């Protein structure tokens, strides 16, 4: 057997693969063979490192050098310089945006400093397609220990004691859910893993499945043992081909090892997992809708109760947890409920994975203890706002969440804190916005999403959200009227109060939170027909400064709608009733005479 002295970890997450990390890995291998180092150095394709902004990412082990923005052509340098000569390839090192210095060790990067990885503990560390590496990291020993040494009730108590809450958004205590499902009597029960991550801008679950699929399988088996189910189903978005592939490999390997299937650990306990595909419907993230979708129906939610724990898949008791929730389970059993409880806040123990994106320097997947402040996440881990712009808002919870402002930056992130401030945890999308983002447009963007993804079953969501969207559209077009804002708020509140499912009930949050936190921005749109962020096209006015205009006629010639008139060598004027705000004139003007107001 080859005895590797170096490991080169190449990120194999979707983001990095999109920028050809596969080619990097194969070039590395080729270069190693050329230099006869194939037995000394192992190239490992891992799951996501999280630092997607800098992808593709390559990490050298054991000296912990972290290379960023690596291209396939860089592979040779890495081998020749780093591996053979022991010299770091400086141009691939991360540059600290503050000090402008090279930082070679990932542990010294701000991006990683404040993170604590539990759910992501194996992502970017092991080869997700190799069960041996998972087992080497104590994989499946939580399952084995529970089955050999614990009753299902005792195991459920561990989950309850840990205080783990559902990471899919609602934050329902997981142990309690397991207990309810255990107590429902039936000849057949199911464990369902909700991997239908549909929030635009969220990719936590996908990264876990791509980077550490076995932790989810192990947790599902643990759950099956606890609630008395022998079948598990993973409902995953069909848009996640890599996660599906790795899950399939993981399931096969676990079966081969007897860690799934019949008589697991010789205890007579049977448990197996199959995959069901989503087909592009956001609402299927709602558990009752998800169950209907797995039953081959339209993914329409139904009124709860009955809860899935009582009557779920095929009308049998069903425990539904999302990927991240499951990924926490083995760690909780390995290290104990007390260990877990000490992390995070009292009511929200543990960590949370966020997909940090938007106008922030370090886009990526991060995991922080609950209670970390938004400021730490955005400015320390996220490295602040891109392009030195001013922070304006952060949106958490996706289409169900809200926009928080500067005033909330020191808010400690946990379920209750976010809810109290008008947003919610959601599944963990976190989008940062800067001064150029118009909050009315942002609310409209989310409503646009909700309208498109509404299942159409209940009136408030089917028609109400459509009307909300239309009103927002009207406002961004400068056609808002007196009374629109009152109506907007009433309608949003009624939708929240009357919609059938969790998605409908939370869909007005982006509207309500932006109205609460940026009232003046709505006012300027409606009362002054102005968009302070300068984003709403219809509210822009192109104006020629007569002092700067020399009458060169360039602008009037380029205007596609003949909105600009004026005599040669005299200042020109734009007829704003004709202007379509295409911006062609500004581009042409050599004198900087045209501006947007």
């Amino acid at each position, binding site marked *: 057997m080859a005895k590797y002295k170096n490991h080169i970890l190449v990120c194999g997450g979707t983001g990095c693969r999109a920028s050809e990390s596969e080619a990097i890995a194969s070039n590395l291998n080729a270069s190693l063979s050329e230099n006869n180092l194939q037995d000394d150095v192992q190239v490992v394709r891992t799951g996501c490192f999280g630092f997607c902004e800098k992808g593709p990412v390559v990490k050298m082990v054991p000296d912990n050098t972290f290379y960023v923005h690596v291209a396939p052509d860089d592979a040779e340098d890495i081998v020749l310089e780093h591996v053979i000569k022991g010299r770091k390839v400086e141009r691939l090192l991360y540059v600290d945006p503050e000090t402008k210095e090279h930082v070679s060790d990932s542990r010294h990067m701000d991006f990683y400093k404040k993170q604590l990885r539990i759910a992501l503990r194996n992502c970017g560390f092991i080869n997700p397609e190799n069960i041996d590496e998972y087992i080497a990291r104590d994989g499946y020993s939580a399952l084995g220990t529970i089955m*050999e040494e614990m009753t299902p009730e005792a195991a459920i108590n561990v989950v309850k004691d840990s205080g783990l809450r559902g990471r899919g958004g609602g934050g329902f205590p997981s142990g309690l859910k397991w207990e309810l499902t255990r107590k429902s009597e039936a000849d057949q029960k199911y464990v369902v893993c909700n991997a239908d991550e549909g929030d635009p801008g969220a990719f936590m679950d996908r990264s876990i499945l791509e980077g550490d699929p076995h932790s989810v399988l192990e947790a599902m088996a643990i759950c099956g043992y606890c609630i008395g189910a022998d079948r598990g189903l993973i409902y995953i978005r069909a848009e996640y081909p890599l996660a599906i592939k790795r899950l399939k490999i993981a399931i096969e390997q676990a079966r081969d090892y007897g860690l799934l299937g019949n008589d697991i650990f010789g205890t007579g306990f049977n448990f197996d997992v199959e995959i069901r595909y989503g087909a592009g419907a956001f609402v299927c993230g709602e558990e009752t809708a998800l169950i209907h979708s797995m039953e081959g129906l339209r993914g329409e939610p139904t009124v709860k109760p009955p809860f899935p724990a009582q009557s779920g898949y095929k009308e049998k008791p069903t425990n539904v947890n999302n990927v991240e929730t499951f990924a926490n389970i083995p760690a909780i059993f390995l290290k104990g409920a007390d260990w877990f409880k000490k992390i995070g806040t009292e009511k929200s123990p543990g960590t949370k994975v966020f997909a940090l994106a938007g106008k922030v320097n370090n886009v990526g997947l991060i995991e922080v203890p609950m209670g970390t402040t938004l400021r730490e996440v955005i400015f320390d881990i996220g490295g602040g706002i891109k392009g030195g712009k001013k922070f304006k808002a952060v949106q958490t919870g996706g289409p169900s969440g809200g926009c928080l402002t500067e005033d909330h930056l020191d808010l400690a992130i946990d379920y209750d804190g976010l809810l109290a401030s008008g947003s919610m945890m959601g599944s963990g999308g976190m989008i940062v916005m800067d001064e150029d983002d118009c909050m009315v447009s942002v609310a409209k963007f989310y409503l646009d999403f909700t309208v498109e993804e509404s299942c159409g079953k209940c009136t408030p969501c089917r028609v109400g959200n459509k009307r909300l969207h239309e009103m927002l559209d009207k406002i961004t077009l400068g056609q808002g009227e007196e009374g629109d804002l009152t109506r907007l708020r009433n309608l949003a509140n009624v939708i929240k109060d009357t919609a059938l499912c969790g998605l409908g009930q939370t869909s007005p949050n982006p509207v309500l939170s932006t109205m609460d936190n940026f009232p003046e921005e709505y006012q300027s749109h409606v009362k002054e027909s102005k968009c302070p962020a300068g984003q709403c096209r219809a509210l822009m006015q192109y104006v020629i400064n007569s002092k700067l205009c020399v009458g060169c006629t360039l602008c009037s010639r380029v205007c596609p709608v003949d909105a600009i008139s004026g005599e040669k060598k005299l200042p020109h004027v734009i007829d704003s009733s004709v202007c379509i705000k295409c911006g062609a004139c500004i581009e042409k003007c050599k004198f900087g005479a045209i501006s947007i107001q």
Partner: protein
Amino acid sequence: MSKVKNLQDLKKMRDDLKGKITLREKSDHPDSLVQIKVSMATCGIASGARDTMNYMVDELESQAVDAVVTQTGCMGYCYAEPTIEVTLPGEKPVVFGQVDTKKASEIIEKYIKNGELVDGIIPDSYETIDKK
């Protein structure tokens, strides 16, 4: 492939497999480990640095010493190749010259395990690769 029949099986398997990733686990906290850098430039390899490195890796593992062995470039002591740099936790790095397997064994026994100095130390006026 053999099935995992019980927890005992799994634990044994884990212990056997552990080696596959210890390198990575160690890289998470190298400061608390013995760090050994083997100069592996052309001159080093020509003088048998590869043998030295392989020997060190095997020996440290078999003696269960928590250490990280990495290669490094030319340290500039071509006359003394193979050279290695050993950093004990909390100590300053020390460079040894002309380290063949015999010398390596001595370094492990005396310096690494017991902190006793061994002949062949190159004075600390040298520059490490990192300082360059």
